[in-house]
């Protein structure tokens, strides 16, 4: 993994020192809130409903055990003993006090973690496939490139006051686990004539105007990546709309100008920018590739796994849902569910964080990942260690076998925390998970992604949920709209609105009707909810959601 250079260490320390001074000046009255607000946002500090919230970047979702352990220490020392992992592979602390934030940031800096550019109209934390460097289906580990982009974008002088925020995601696999088509720029490693390069997708995004990204260039040579990214962001920075924040994202720019016009502008800008890159970026990339060298894998028996799999039905269930194919013989990728039924999606207590850190240290080459699905991953574990890993996870409530199932719900913090929210998300996620757990049909239902947002900004990715739920305020009452058929993968699709929304009391029964209808109409247990929806369309689901309308029509 990448380790900070002396330059990085000094840079982060200097920023933290500046922010400490800014906070002191705010408290002393030397800075007004209007002056202070942009400064705190540059350092990831929001003011939410009940408290401040500190958003800390987990670069491209990759963590060492010491960093996870430090999150636990921060949670215990300055917060309420837990942290919330987000859909952008960040961690959020919900209860920091303003005057403790400098100490928190200094503590995080000791383990090479910061909160710079986790807010504001800047290039945000670059997200990546959470199986990067481990997935069996991967062409190349995207993290060296993600680190290159991080260093290029951090404090980039041209890109500190852009029309709006800018989000980049990257995957090195054919299977898109990074939702690249719903980002301002999505990058996919592709191969052409034996050379690796990038497909560049631009103008995707969710929020109030959801759009699937469009291909800007289908093969970009590696050495052109940074100048090309600089050209894209530069073009948008110049022509992107600053008159209306709802029309400021690059998806609107691409939509208004057309992808061909944008491509022409980018190409022209690229021609200017490219000569300014001396090749030093490729030298750095080469260093980062060394830093992300594959671990040395062991070759040994997997008997312990086979025996546990055969004899322990609880372990078998967990192995069937939570393990993914690793590229190395005898290894697995283990996903730790932060979605225990009835718990808050994405939350981990300090005790849970310490257990995950310890498992990574002892059995996982010291690596952990945060997924955009708000789970934690041990990317490199030998199968023989899995029974013990599962046992230790189970002791602290982390043994839930539900990855990809209906209770593995993405939910934004919603109105329980977020100042922008129009309704709550968390209680809806908790109730859905508990309901289907009680019905004991979760495994029978199979792969089904529910994603819940508590406002139109769509942090909960509801547009790309197989079932999406959007919480709104309708005349002073929480109201939940359902969308169906969304897809976050390479076949990305925006879900279709099913019809009028449901009250907080009605939404869980509505989801239940929907799912029971799916079980009725699917051709076989192998036909997923999404496939069934694609075959049949909205009609049977609308009929079950709105039976009174059907009765009225008849």
């Amino acid at each position, binding site marked *: 993994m990448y380790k900070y250079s002396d330059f990085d260490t000094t840079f982060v320390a200097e920023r933290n020192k500046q922010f400490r001074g800014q906070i002191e000046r705010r408290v002393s*009255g030397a800075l007004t*809130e209007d002056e202070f607000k942009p400064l705190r946002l540059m350092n990831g500090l929001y003011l939410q409903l*009940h408290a*401040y919230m500190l958003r800390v970047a987990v670069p491209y979702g990759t963590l060492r055990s010491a960093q996870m352990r430090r999150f636990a220490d921060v949670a215990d020392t300055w917060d309420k003993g837990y942290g919330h992992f987000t859909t952008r592979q960040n961690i959020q602390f919900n209860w920091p006090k303003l005057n403790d934030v400098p100490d928190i940031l200094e503590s995080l800096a000791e383990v090479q973690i910061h909160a710079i550019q986790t807010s504001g109209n800047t290039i945000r934390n670059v997200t990546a496939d959470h199986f990067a460097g481990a997935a069996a289906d991967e062409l190349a580990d995207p993290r060296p490139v993600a680190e290159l982009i991080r260093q290029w974008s951090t404090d980039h002088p041209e890109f500190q006051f852009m029309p709006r925020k800018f989000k980049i995601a990257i995957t090195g696999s054919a299977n898109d686990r990074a939702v690249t088509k719903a980002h301002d720029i999505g990058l996919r490693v592709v191969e052409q004539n034996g050379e690796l390069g990038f497909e560049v997708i631009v103008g995707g995004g969710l929020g109030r105007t959801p759009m699937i990204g469009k291909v800007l260039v289908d093969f970009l040579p590696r050495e052109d990546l940074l100048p090309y990214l600089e050209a894209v962001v530069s073009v948008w920075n110049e022509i992107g709309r600053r008159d209306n924040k709802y029309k400021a994202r690059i998806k609107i720019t691409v939509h208004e100008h057309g992808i061909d016009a944008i491509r022409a502008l980018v190409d022209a800008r690229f021609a200017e920018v490219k000569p300014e890159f001396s090749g030093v970026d490729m030298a750095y990339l080469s260093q980062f590739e060394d830093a992300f060298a594959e671990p040395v894998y062991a070759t040994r028996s997997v008997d312990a796994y086979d025996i546990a799999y055969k004899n322990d039905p609880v372990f078998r269930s967990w192995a069937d849902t939570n393990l993914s194919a690793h590229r190395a013989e005898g290894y697995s990728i283990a996903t730790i569910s932060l979605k225990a039924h009835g718990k*808050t999606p994405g939350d981990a207590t300090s005790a849970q964080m310490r257990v995950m850190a310890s498992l990574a240290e002892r059995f996982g080459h010291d690596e952990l990942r945060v997924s955009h699905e708000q789970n934690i991953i041990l990317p490199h574990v030998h199968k023989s260690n899995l029974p013990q890993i599962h046992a230790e996870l189970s002791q602290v409530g982390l043994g839930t076998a539900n990855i990809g199932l209906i209770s593995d719900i993405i939910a934004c913090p919603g109105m329980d925390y977020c100042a922008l929210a129009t309704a709550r998300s968390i209680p809806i996620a908790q109730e859905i998970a508990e309901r289907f757990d009680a019905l004991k049909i979760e495994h029978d239902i199979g792969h089904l992604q529910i994603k819940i947002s508590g406002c139109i900004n769509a942090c909960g990715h509801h547009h790309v949920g197989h079932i999406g739920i959007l919480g709104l305020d309708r005349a*002073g009452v929480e109201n939940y709209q359902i969308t169906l058929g969304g897809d976050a993968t390479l076949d990305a699709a925006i879900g279709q609105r099913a019809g009028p929304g449901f009250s907080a009391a009605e939404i869980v029964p509505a989801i239940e009707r929907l799912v029971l209808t799916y079980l009725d109409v699917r051709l076989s247990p192998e036909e997923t909810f999404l496939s069934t929806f694609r075959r049949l369309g909205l009609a049977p689901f609308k009929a079950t959601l709105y039976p009174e309308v059907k009765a009225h029509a008849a």
Partner: protein
Amino acid sequence: MPRPVLPKVITANALIEGDVVYMTAKGVWSRCLSDAEIIDDEADAQIRLLDASAQSGDVVGVYLLDVKAGPNGAEPVHFREAFRRTGPSNYLHGKQEGLGHV
């Protein structure tokens, strides 16, 4: 149809802790909505808002919230303010923890 003008309470977040606070009749901030001064006159509310906003060393994000009068003082009209008064619904954190009264 014009919306009826509801009584107001001045609210903000405490500068250091971020806690939701309300302005009392004595001109000091309280954590409890029931301590808040209910302002019926709209013009008066606007002036009091200006005065409260000037206390920027103690609070951040000062605004007027709609309330109705209840037996224990001001009651929120909107669910957002009901959550601000107590805390999140997934944990007993925020103002609902510790203090028995809200």
